[in-house]
């Protein structure tokens, strides 16, 4: 692979600095190998996060324990997260240590060399994780871990129980004319995968094997379905709060969302329910270590801390998502009765096979072993054709 001159220069600089600090940072080796143990904290940790991912209620005890003071940069979208990590020479620009990337950005970060391999053995809770989140394809490439799974959520079908009768059973309801003008779906190119998953079942002749690995013909068939669906939509939602507003205002009766929206509306006694159709898509986030992380020890300490059952439970309830560590279940129930089941943490392994977790579309097709799939930019372009 051709390495840009700018990057060589940056590597030289980093190597020089690394050598200079080799004595103090002996425990975290610069260069090829991953560290074998976590050294003394650097006193500071800079993260790019989804808002509240280092929320005070669980970040404060960590700061006290480790002395690593957290500095946050909130991101509003996966695209913004990627550009923050990739800017200033890439690898977090020597400024950021960790990024809480979702599955639609994590592979891009790996292939752009903005994140580095980690030693998963340094994160003891990893052994307790649900099997699907130990080495998922969105953060582990060829057996190399580029971060630690964090939290996840299924994409659910939310509906107003007063308006939508009988209760829907699967995704077909958002493609049918019955509720035309009252449907909403997210404004996100990755939504193409939801339509592809629907076609996988309803149009087997297309031969869709993986909703994130679409050939040109499969992608254009999916775009066709989305264009047909468009007149049925009230709107595309961008922010979770936006979707809640349109439900509450009576403009939207059903649509694709996350457990967070459902629980928020139910907490306000608004008559909505959700189902997790089979199959469905889902998202999963990963704390990834920047390749130029200036505070790697604090970063490891955070990854270790945030995956422990108690902290996992706290974060899940702050944000409205599900832990990857099933031992968090009892702590969740202690904090909020029935929340473990409400967030689907107690489901059997077979359940997780029905959720297709977000991953960045790349030209390399897993199922054809060829470079025949459409990449993420093609998806962005296709999405613009749907929404424009």
């Amino acid at each position, binding site marked *: 692979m051709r390495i840009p001159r700018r990057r060589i220069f940056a590597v030289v600089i980093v190597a020089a600095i690394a050598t200079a600090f080799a004595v103090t940072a002996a425990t975290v080796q610069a260069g090829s190998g991953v560290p074998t143990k976590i050294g003394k904290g650097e006193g500071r940790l800079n993260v790019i996060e989804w808002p509240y991912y280092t929320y005070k209620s669980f970040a404060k005890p960590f700061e006290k324990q480790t002395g690593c003071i957290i500095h946050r940069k909130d991101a509003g979208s996966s695209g913004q997260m990627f550009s923050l990590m990739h800017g200033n020479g890439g690898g977090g620009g020597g400024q950021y240590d960790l990024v809480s990337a979702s599955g639609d950005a994590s592979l891009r970060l790996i292939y752009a060399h903005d994140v580095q391999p980690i030693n998963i053995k340094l994160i003891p809770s990893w052994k307790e994780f649900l099997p699907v989140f130990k080495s998922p394809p969105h953060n582990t490439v060829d057996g190399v871990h580029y971060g630690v799974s964090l939290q996840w959520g299924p994409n659910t079908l939310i509906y107003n129980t007063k308006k939508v009768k009988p209760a829907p059973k699967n995704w077909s309801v958002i493609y049918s004319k019955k509720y035309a003008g009252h449907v909403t779906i997210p404004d996100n190119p990755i939504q193409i995968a939801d339509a592809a998953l629907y076609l996988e079942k309803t149009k087997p002749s297309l031969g869709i094997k993986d909703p994130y690995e679409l050939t040109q013909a499969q992608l254009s068939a999916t775009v066709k379905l989305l264009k047909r669906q468009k007149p049925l939509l009230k709107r595309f939602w961008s922010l979770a709060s936006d979707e809640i507003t349109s439900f509450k205002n009576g*403009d939207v009766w059903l649509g694709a969302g996350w457990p967070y929206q459902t629980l928020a509306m139910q907490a306000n006694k608004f008559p909505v329910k959700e189902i997790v159709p089979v199959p469905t898509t889902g998202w999963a986030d990963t704390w990834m270590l920047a390749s130029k992380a200036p505070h790697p020890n604090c970063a490891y300490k955070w990854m270790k801390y945030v995956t422990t059952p108690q902290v996992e439970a706290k974060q899940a309830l702050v944000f409205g998502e599900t832990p990857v560590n099933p031992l968090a279940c009892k702590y969740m129930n202690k904090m909020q009765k029935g929340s473990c089941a409400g967030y689907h943490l107690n489901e059997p392994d077979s359940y997780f096979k029905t959720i297709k977790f977000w991953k960045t579309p790349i030209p390399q097709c897993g199922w054809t072993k060829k470079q025949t799939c459409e990449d993420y*930019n093609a998806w962005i372009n296709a999405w613009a054709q749907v*929404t424009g």
Partner: protein
Amino acid sequence: MATDAGALAAGPSLRRARLRLSGFLWRRPWLKALGLLSLPLAAFLVIYIGSLGALFVSSLWTSNSFTSDIEHTWTLANYRTIFSSANPYLHIAGFTLKMAAAVTVTDAILAFPLAFFMARVASKRTRAVLFVMVLLPLWSSYLVRLYAWQTILAHDGAINWALNGLGLPDQNLAYTNTAMWIVYSYVWLPFMVLPVYAALERIPDSYLEASADLGARGWRTFRSVILPLALPGVVAGSIFTFALTLGDYITPLLIGGTDSKMIGSIVDENFATNLPFAAAFTVIPMTIMGVYLLIARRLGAFEAL
């Protein structure tokens, strides 16, 4: 006092130097102007013109489809993408232009009578009250006003509530292009009222009297005297309403429906992952505004500002 003492202590040599400097500047007024203007001018050139130049240059580059790295090879590919009929971008640009034009015309029609009343009819006190009312919305955040409109236009919102109260059927206004047109016309209205007011206020009473003396009735005076003199004000106001609509992306996000994407929305979506394309799409409203400003100057809008 301390400084005076200091100046005295420094002796006459310092004072002489100061006098010499001021004399030097007095003899060379261009130097004085340069001293006053160089800093703001440099900021203007570097920050404003410079970044516009950088924007244009980067629109001729491309970005790597996977890593989003900018690739510094000269190409018109971004413009080809925009102008290709297979893509939705021309349609989006056209929609944005139509929206900006509709909002501008609406605001001109709404603002003219209000500005006329304020400038020529209202008493001093009423005028002050009206001024505050026109300006008041500008003192609250644009976002707050958009969210307020979201609830007003909603299916279970104020408008439908009022319609139902009158025995009329519900209107599906929320998340439509009509909703966007209403909201834009509302938020940019003050920017039209103020320049029109300024233009109307400047018309001397004697012109109207002369018109009456020559036998013109109200309508004739309005058409032949007031309107031509107020036109530069309307054009000046239209620069604001047109440009502000052309560049916005928040309203399509919060108020718009499924066919409401505007130029700003596309720039916002591509900014993080495909900067050169976002830059190329920005060049389009810039070109439109450039042409618009040239026409506005012809119509004397800049004297009315």
